[in-house]
């Protein structure tokens, strides 16, 4: 026969009630947050996983913002490139028209004014900004890249942006690569030395060509130089020079079209990244929910079960506590 003393039964009641209530409290916390995890010790590995996923999600959010920034930048660049191509094509058409000797010098004077206009428009396009950032200034984004003479004041650096983990894309085209032809195809120096071919200097057509690159003595011609040469050729009524410039202009147009294609390709890369990030986010969300969210059905079933256990404990305890031999000795 085992002896049961007052304290031993009270102890066991306390222990049983305490244990059940403890479990119930934990379940209630889970029920109120609907999370199966409320502190690291609930699932140390899951906690680390959860925090890592959250980090990835924050990263993804930032990459998306970077993507938006890059997209704006590139879309704007593409628009400007399109306008520039149109302008150049127009200039080329005019040049083709004037390349033969059939037109009178007076007409060429008129066309010269038109070319001048085109050059001015080109200049203003080359100095386009988004906000306060110049599009074509390289990394010197706050410096106006082209002065009135078409001299490039920016640098040759690309701006790279991270659009996904370890994926960097350039978001700018430098004024240098866009407006200066490559070194193999540069104009003859004499073509550009317009002062020699012009008897008098038109005040409209101030020519102060200087080589863009002071480091090397090579002369690179910019689109602005070409337009100026064209204008001068019109003014000086020089169909040969016009004819000679046509090829240069073709290559400039080609170059711009080439950059447009490049911008398009980069935009595609960005779109791909965007899709990838969205996919990763979805996978992450699913995983995050698996790690941190409580299984609601199971949770409430458990909650119900524990409540029943508690009730049963109370019932059993009340039976035990309310009976005493004293009751029967009266």
């Amino acid at each position: 026969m085992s002896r049961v003393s007052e304290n031993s039964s009270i102890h066991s009641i306390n222990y049983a009630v305490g244990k059940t209530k403890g479990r119930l409290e934990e379940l209630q916390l889970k029920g109120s947050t609907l999370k199966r995890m409320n502190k690291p010790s609930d699932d140390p590995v899951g906690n680390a996983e959860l925090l890592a996923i959250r980090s990835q999600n924050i990263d993804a959010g930032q990459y998306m913002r970077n993507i938006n920034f890059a997209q704006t930048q590139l879309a704007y660049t593409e628009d400007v490139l399109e306008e520039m191509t149109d302008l150049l094509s127009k200039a080329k058409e005019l040049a083709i028209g004037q390349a033969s000797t059939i037109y009178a010098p007076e007409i060429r004077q008129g066309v010269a004014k038109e070319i001048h206009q085109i050059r001015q428009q080109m200049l203003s396009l080359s100095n386009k900004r988004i906000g306060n950032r110049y599009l074509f200034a390289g990394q010197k984004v706050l410096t106006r890249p082209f002065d009135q003479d078409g001299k490039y004041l920016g640098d040759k650096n690309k701006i790279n942006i991270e659009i996904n983990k370890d994926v960097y894309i350039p978001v700018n085209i430098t004024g240098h690569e866009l407006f200066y032809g490559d070194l193999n195809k540069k104009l003859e120096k004499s073509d550009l030395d317009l002062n020699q071919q012009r008897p008098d200097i038109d005040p409209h057509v101030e020519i102060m060509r200087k080589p863009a690159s002071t480091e090397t003595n090579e002369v690179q011609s910019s689109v602005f130089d070409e337009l100026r040469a064209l204008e001068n050729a019109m003014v000086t009524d020089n169909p040969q020079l016009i004819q000679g410039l046509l090829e240069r202009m073709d290559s400039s147009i080609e170059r711009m079209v080439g950059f447009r294609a490049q911008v398009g390709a980069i935009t595609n890369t960005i779109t791909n990244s965007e899709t990838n990030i969205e996919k990763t986010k979805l996978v992450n969300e699913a995983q995050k929910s698996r790690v941190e969210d409580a299984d609601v059905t199971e949770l409430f079933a458990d909650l119900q079960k524990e409540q029943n256990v508690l009730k049963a404990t109370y019932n059993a305890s009340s039976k035990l506590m309310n009976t005493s031999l004293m009751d029967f000795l009266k």
Partner: protein
Amino acid sequence: MSTDLLNIGKSGLFAAKQSMSTTSHNIANANTEGFTKQEVKTENAPTRYESSYVLGTGVDIQSIKRSHDEMVEKKLTKSLSNHKFNEERTNQLGHIEEVFNEVNSEGMNKILNRFFNSFRELSNQPENETIRNVVKENAKIVVNDFHRIRGNLDDIRSSISSKVTQGVDHINLLSKTVAKLNREIATEEVAGAMANDLRDQRDIAIRSLTEYFPLTTYTDEKGQYNVSIEGVGSIVSGGNYQALQAGSRAKDGNANTERGEAEIFFASRPTHAITDKIKGGALGAQLKTRNEELTVLEKQLDELAHGLVLATNSIHRRGFANHPVPVDSQGNPVPNAAPQKVTGINFFKEPLDLNRAAEYITLSDEVESDANNIATALEANKPGDNRVALAISKLQHEKVLGSGTTTFEEQYLKSVSNIGLQAGKSKIDQEQSQGILAQAKSFKERISGVSLDEEAANMIKYQNAYEASAKMIRASDEMFKSVLGLLP
């Protein structure tokens, strides 16, 4: 003959009365913590030899005994110190864990992540002052969170130390009580009686004492009661006790001590710390948590802060701040000619030491005073140059810590997982040891506890015995009277 009858009746009356008063003592103490049920042990009184037969002479009270089992008591004290260890450890680790808990709130991991992402945002528009200020604010949040975590860990550390100090005071009080009770029990038991209630009090004191550390108790051949801390040595020996002392000592190569915090030693031997030898009980849990988990976490946090500062600074110093730099005639920038420092700027203040780096981390004066001093460009005079900002944001995924084996996040998550694992484990241990303790307690109560039902039955038994003995006396009185009545 009649005197015999009277005497036997009287002895029965006495025994019943004594049993009754013991029953009453038991009932009165039914809810007294640590009370052990007492029983009156009786035996038949020495017999008397008549010529050809042996006559009983009544009942003798042999002793009043505690219903006590040494083994059960030892099992109880053992499971008590074990449970107290787990309970205190769960408690302390819970505090620590809460410092690192960012399941439902902000925490270092998120904050560090945002810091790096703000550099990524800045790489889009390095010339943008608003974003520069965002970076600065995010860096400040990082700094504050390092301070918060370090401060909280320090608070926990000092609260543990003050608990240890208070605990030692209480321990000394208890040792003193045990020694005093030892003397009183010895005095009281000289005649051979059992000092039941004093022994109960001593058991209570021992149980309080074993909440602090595991104990062994034994009675030596001279009948002296000894108490010693497991793995350390004797603290009570008969009527004498050894006081413990907690306090800062000059460090003697003990790597676990920081800022001369509470070490434990015998007051009589202040040069020999016993801190590391205490392996259980609440005191053991406090010391283990302080000297192991807290120390490791603080070190890891310091490494994190230190690594972050060094890595960020080493890149940041190479960059140029958002200020114009004068150029020479060749157009080359001359940073030295600028009115203020434009390159070689630290982002965070360079730490002096790895130790407590998380406490001392702060923004450099340059960055603190002007967000334009955040270097983003690799070349001077290029406000759109974002290469340095990109490189700093890339630190997020670089394995810079642990000599190139882990990223900041991995290192931090390792710390958090570790404390989570320890806290989870100690919680399970606690549940288990609580079960074992409850079992030991109920085992002990079954033997030593008061059962009111039993006492009620005894009450009736002894009442009846008393009545019967009283009747016996009356009967013998009447018998005596009837003999007297024969006389004229």
